[in-house]
């Protein structure tokens, strides 16, 4: 009994930071309709800033003051980010906003590295709360009890702010109908800035509050993000009580999981999430999100047309020149070109999903890494030859996509995006934890191609043929009935369904198809590198692909591979610098605010302007 109670108390204590970050994310989404991916980064900043302030400010007053100040400071930083960056993208399609917040993540990561260094920082203990209290014979840290008490207070304060003040009333009104709020004379800019700042302050406070338990490190932004997404999906986006309920549920579950079935913690969380979604697709206390209700669908897209003969001839010539690279290129050029080709296929597969099916997946790396691990595991554990591994990699990735899609596609919009990210993260953790089978963080090395494809030139040709073929198949699918049906379902699911299209099944097929193509890219990657590590499944890898698709231009057919080529070549050059994330993040923000149609879109506009 005592043990049971202690476990519940630990769970409640752990729920504190999670609730604050999740409620901030929820609040921001409710008003601005932006899923703030950088929310984990603000949480991390809260921890680091709190740490620094605690070093400077003395005693108990300094300790608690530092926490509050950290929240305020992060709130101010958040408000600044909103004013400088997000204000420019409110009217843009969802993807732009996401990419803008990715840019912020990258920048914050490097800034934190610059300021606080790569070492994990151990959080200071709360003055006077160092020991434990015995509750029914079980030790419970005193600080846990403080957390258990503080969290409902913060929740109560937040509730009062939202229900009792004019600001809160405006926030709730804007959550329902922004346009009407503006027509009533409310300047939404300040409302948005205020909400964003408040949400970030909550994240920062959460980060500072957990310092005595968890300290500060450079990975905590992504770690919390996954949990927060799970909490928000379970609790319901935009619902504060939902966020609290789900944070407690997940934390308590996690604590019991650790106690009874250490390997099951992740799986347990996901089983709960899937169960909740089956029962209530918009979370325990959430409401249905209507796509485009916030006016983010953007202008209707022009129909796509097959390229003209001149373009085709140009592409054929370029392909010929690329195919002949081994005849004139250096070894370095060959290796780089192989990497670029593989990445282009990966990006093109996500681009297909985004552009044709309108499904914004945040976890596409699950299939890229899934294909890579499938190939590597086949070689390692089944002694499969390269040819078989390359054949099975896309098949296994496709099956994986079928399974993940079966659950994720029950949700739409941001819920879908978060689910895909959560599943990718689950896969990543699985590979990480199941070290005896997958090699864990050491990865798997020595997975080399067959003898005939062993040379740089031979492998380049293999990658060239498979990747170009893959991209052409994706392109062909866009012009085939599948593509027409997908675009119809994307633009108006209700009408598409009324015309006899099985929308859900179509999207499922598209998801699996894109997953299989990503798996092929992953399989090729393993043999190109001779190794695979869990970071091929990371959130960062999914983000890379999203950034690339965005960079190339979502609304253009060639956006995927053009963006992929530019990105891979660019990062090859960028990563030679220490703070390349900062540079990449700034580039992304630059593009988001100045060339939102992407490379291909901007080039096309220039071309059309030149002609007219």
């Amino acid at each position, binding site marked *: 009994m005592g043990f049971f109670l202690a476990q519940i108390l630990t769970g409640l204590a752990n729920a504190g930071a999670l609730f604050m970050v999740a409620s901030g994310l929820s609040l921001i989404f409710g008003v601005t309709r932006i899923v703030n991916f950088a929310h984990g980064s603000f949480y991390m900043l809260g921890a680091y800033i709190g740490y620094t302030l605690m070093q400077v400010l003395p005693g108990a007053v300094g300790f608690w003051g530092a926490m509050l100040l950290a929240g305020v400071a992060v709130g101010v930083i958040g408000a600044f980010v909103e004013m400088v960056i997000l204000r420019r993208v409110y009217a843009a399609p969802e993807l732009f906003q996401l990419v803008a917040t990715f840019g912020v993540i990258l920048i914050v990561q490097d800034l934190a590295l610059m300021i606080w260094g790569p070492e994990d920082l151990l959080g200071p203990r709360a003055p006077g709360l160092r020991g434990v209290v015995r509750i029914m014979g079980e030790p419970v840290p005193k600080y846990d009890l403080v957390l258990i008490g503080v969290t409902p207070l913060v929740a109560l304060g937040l509730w009062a702010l939202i229900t009792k003040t*004019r600001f809160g*009333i405006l926030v709730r*009104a804007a959550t*329902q*109908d922004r*346009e*009407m709020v*503006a*027509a*009533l004379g409310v300047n939404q800019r300040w409302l948005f800035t205020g909400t964003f700042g408040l949400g970030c302050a909550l994240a920062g406070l959460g980060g500072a509050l957990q310092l005595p338990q968890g300290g500060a490190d450079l990975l905590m932004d992504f770690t919390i993000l996954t949990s927060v997404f799970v909490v928000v999906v379970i609790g319901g986006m935009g619902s504060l009580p939902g966020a609290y309920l789900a944070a407690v549920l997940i934390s308590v579950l996690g604590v019991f999981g650790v106690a009874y079935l250490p390997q099951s913690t992740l799986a347990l969380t996901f089983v709960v999430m899937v169960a909740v979604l089956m029962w209530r697709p918009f979370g325990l206390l959430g409401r249905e999100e209507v796509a485009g209700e916030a006016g983010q669908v953007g202008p209707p897209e022009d129909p796509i047309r097959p390229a003209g003969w001149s373009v085709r001839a140009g592409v054929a010539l370029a392909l010929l020149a690329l195919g002949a690279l081994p005849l004139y290129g250096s070894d370095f050029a060959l290796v780089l070109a192989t990497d670029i080709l593989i990445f282009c296929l990966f990006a093109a597969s996500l681009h297909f999903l985004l552009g044709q099916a309108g499904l914004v997946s945040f976890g596409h790396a699950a299939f890229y890494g899934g294909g890579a691990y499938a190939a590597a595991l086949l070689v390692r554990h089944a002694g499969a030859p390269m040819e078989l591994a390359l054949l099975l990699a896309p098949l296994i990735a496709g099956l994986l996509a079928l399974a993940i899609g079966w659950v994720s596609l029950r949700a739409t919009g941001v819920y879908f995006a978060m689910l895909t990210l959560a599943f990718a993260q689950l896969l990543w953790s699985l590979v990480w934890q199941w070290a005896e089978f997958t090699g864990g963080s050491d990865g798997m090395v020595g997975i080399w191609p067959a003898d005939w494809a062993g040379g740089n030139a031979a492998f380049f040709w293999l990658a060239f043929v498979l990747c170009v073929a893959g991209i052409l198949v994706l392109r062909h699918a866009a012009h085939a009935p599948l593509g027409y049906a997908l675009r119809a379902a994307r633009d108006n699911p209700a009408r598409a369904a009324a015309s006899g299209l099985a929308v859900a099944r179509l999207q499922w097929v598209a998801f699996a198809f894109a997953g299989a193509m990503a798996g092929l890219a992953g399989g090729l990657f393993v043999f190109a590198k001779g190794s695979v590590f869990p970071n091929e499944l990371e959130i960062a890898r999914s983000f890379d692909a999203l950034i690339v698709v965005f960079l190339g231009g979502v609304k253009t057919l060639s956006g995927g591979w053009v963006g992929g080529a530019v990105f891979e070549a660019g990062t090859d050059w960028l990563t030679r610098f220490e703070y390349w994330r900062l540079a990449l993040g700034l580039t992304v923000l630059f593009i988001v605010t100045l060339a939102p149609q992407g490379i291909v879109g901007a080039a096309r506009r220039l071309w059309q302007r030149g002609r007219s």
Partner: protein
Amino acid sequence: MLEAEGLDVFYGKAQVLSGLSLHVARGEVVALLGRNGAGKTTTLKALMQMLPVARGTVRLSGTEITGAPPYRVARAGLGYVPEERRIFTQLTVRENLEVGRQKPREGVPAWTEEGLFALFPNLAERADAPGRALSGGEQQMLSIARTLMGNPACLLLDEPSEGIAPVIVAEMVRAIRRLKGEGLTILLSEQTLPFARAVADRVAVIDHGRVVFEGTFDALDAAPGIRADHLAV
């Protein structure tokens, strides 16, 4: 008070308003009549700058407001009551009114919660009920009251009589006359002539995105062609 000159408005490539001009004098109630799809709602939204105006100008009390963000238009004294009412269903009646509250304006009646509850007694009874619990007529009253909380000099009412019970329509007529008595300028869109006749001083008939007739009801009665060509269904 409110002057629109040569407004062009497009939805994508389709032109919805072409060279629409309209004038409402201070203290006047003008009814904008027209069939479904004639462009009534678009006109009101364009006046409110909730739609991009491709060509033409809108002036409020002599100040040009074309292209201004809607919140500035509202603060300049133009109040908008949408056809769908768009009340905040999750908020109570009082909270809905709070969203609309703005500072008092010089030379315009300043509204308070009590004043509006006196104008619409039904709302007073439901002051703490959530918006979603209101009937259609009550929602319409709340939508008007909410906009009045901003103390507008000129009110845009989009089909105030649509879809509400006849008893409530009578009450709406009474309320609009009362607002006119307070010195408010009103432009309202309508599909039905009787309601327009009951509240308005003048009438403007709109068809295919342009004003085809502007004048008194007597003049409209004297021009049967206008009614037959542009109003009859």
